[in-house]
C-alpha cells in the first residue's frame, strides 16, 4: 500500500514538474524568498531625482504645498494607492510570492499587490495598455535575479512622500535578488518626459522572524472617521 501511494505521489510530482517545465522556469529554478520582509533603513540618502527644469519646478511646488499644509500626500490620506515604484519603499511587511509563471509583490500597507508575469508574455499594446497604480509588469529570471519591467503607470501618484512627480511615460526596471540574508531591489526609474537620465534607487529588505504575520488593517478607517467629522 505504501509503495503504491509513493508511486502515485512520484507520478504526480513528475507530472507537475513536466507541467511547469513548459514555462520559463520550474520550482527548482526559483529562489526561496518566502517569509515576511521589511525595508532596511538606508545609511545614505537617496540621490536627488534628475528632473528637467520644468519638472523640478513641479516637484518644488508639490513639496512647498505639502510643507504649508496646502495639500496632502495622496497616499498618506488614504486617498490613492502608493502604486509602483513607490510601493517598493513602503514601511511594513513586504511579501514576494514566487511561483513559476508569476510573482506577486504584496505590501501590507494599503493592501497593494503588484502582479509580475514571468510566463513570457509581453506588455499589452494600444488601448489594452492603460495606466494603473501598479502598472503593467512583466518579468524574467536571470538566474536567481528577478528582472521586472514596469510600464503603464498612472501619472497622479508620487514617486516618494516628498511629492516627486512623474509622467505617464515612466518606465521602471527593477532587479530583485538575494544579497546575503537580505533581499535587494535595484530600481531604475526612467521618465523621458521628466528626467534627464534614469533615477537609480536601492532598497534592501530584511526577513522578519519566523512566525511573523501580515497585519490586516484598512487605511480607509481613518478616512471614514475624517469623512464623518467633515460631515458634522
Amino acid at each position, binding site marked *: 500500500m*505504501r509503495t503504491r*501511494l*509513493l508511486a*502515485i*505521489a512520484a507520478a*504526480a*510530482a513528475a507530472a*507537475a*514538474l513536466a*507541467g*511547469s517545465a513548459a514555462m520559463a522556469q*520550474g*520550482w527548482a529554478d526559483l529562489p526561496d524568498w*518566502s*517569509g515576511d520582509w521589511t525595508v532596511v533603513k538606508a545609511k545614505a540618502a537617496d540621490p536627488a531625482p534628475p528632473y528637467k527644469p520644468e519638472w523640478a519646478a513641479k516637484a518644488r511646488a508639490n513639496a512647498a*504645498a505639502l510643507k504649508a*499644509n*496646502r*495639500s*496632502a500626500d495622496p497616499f498618506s*490620506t*488614504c*486617498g*490613492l*494607492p502608493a502604486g509602483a515604484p513607490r510601493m517598493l519603499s513602503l514601511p511594513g511587511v513586504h*511579501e514576494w*510570492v*514566487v*511561483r513559476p*509563471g*508569476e510573482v*506577486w509583490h*504584496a505590501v501590507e500597507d494599503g*493592501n*497593494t*499587490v503588484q*502582479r509580475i508575469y514571468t510566463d513570457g508574455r509581453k506588455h*499589452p499594446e494600444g488601448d489594452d495598455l492603460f495606466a*494603473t*497604480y*501598479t502598472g503593467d509588469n512583466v518579468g524574467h529570471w536571470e538566474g536567481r535575479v528577478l528582472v521586472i519591467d514596469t510600464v503603464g503607470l498612472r501619472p497622479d501618484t508620487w514617486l516618494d512622500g516628498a511629492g516627486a512627480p512623474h509622467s505617464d511615460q515612466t518606465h521602471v526596471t527593477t532587479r530583485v535578488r538575494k544579497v546575503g540574508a537580505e533581499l535587494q531591489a535595484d530600481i531604475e526609474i526612467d521618465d523621458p518626459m521628466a528626467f534627464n537620465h534614469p533615477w537609480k534607487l536601492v532598497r534592501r529588505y530584511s526577513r522578519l522572524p519566523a*512566525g511573523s*504575520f*501580515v*497585519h*490586516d*488593517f*484598512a487605511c*480607509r*478607517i*481613518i*478616512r*471614514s*472617521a*475624517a*469623512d*464623518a*467629522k*467633515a460631515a*458634522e
Partner: protein
Amino acid sequence: MRIPASRVWALAAVGSLALGAAAGAAPLRPAESLPDWTGVWQNKGPPTDTDLFDGGTSQPRGCAALNQPCRSYPPYKPDWEAKYEKNLGMARAATLPDPLTRCMPRGTPGNMRSPDTIEFVPRPERTWIFIENGSQARRIYTDGRGHRTGKDAFDNWTGDSVGHWEGDTLVVETVGVKGDMMIDRTGAILSSKAKVSERIHRRDENTMEDDFTIEDPVALTGPWKVTRLYRKVQGPIYDYACAENPRNKIDASGRTLTLDTQGRVIDAH
C-alpha cells in the same frame, strides 16, 4: 503523539513525517505537488451581487434572497434574526449602508462573495487569496502554526486563517474576524466569535469550489453550510482603488477638497 493537522497531507511520505516531528517543525508540502489553481477566477452568481451570501440554500433554490418567504438561512438566534430583519428591511428599501459601497473591506467570509476577480495562489508555506475588489488579500498559513494568541490575537477584516492540505483540498479555519460586519448586500452579519471553516479545491478544469461551514455560538443556532463556486475567466485583473471615487466635500467651484486625518479641510482657498 499528536499529529498536527498540517501533516495530514504527508501521511504517504512516512519518512519525512518522522523527520519533521523529530525536528519539531512542520514539514511543508513540496511545491511541485501543489495543485494547479493558476488563472483568474470569478464568483458564479448574479452579477448584481444582491443576493444572500448563501444564495444556494435559499428555499426554494434560486429564489430571490430579499423575498422574505423563501429565506431559510442563515440559522439565526432570535435576537440576531431581529438584527438581520432590520438590515433586510434597509436592503429592500435600497438604503443598506453596505460598507463595501463606502470602500471599506468586506472581510471573511464575505470577501469570498466579492464581485470581480479572485486568484488562489498556493505556495508550500502559505496560500494567498488575492481579491481584486478592494483590493484585499487573504493569507492562509500552512506552515503548521496555530491561531494567534495574546496581543497578536486581535480582530481584523480577513481574520486569522490557518490551513492544511488534505490531498488537493486546502482545509482552512478562520477566526478573529471583526463582528457585526455585513457579509453580503442583504445585510447578513456574524459575531466576532464566528469560526469559518473552508474546504477549497478545484472541482474541474473551469471551476474552483469553496465549501464553507460557518459556526457562530453567539449569532447562529447551528452550523451554516454554504458552497460557493468560481468559474475560470480570462484576465486581466484590474488594479484600481475604490477610494479614488471622490467622496470629500467640494467647494463652490466644484473642486474636491483635501482633508487631513482629523477631517479638517487643508486646501481651502
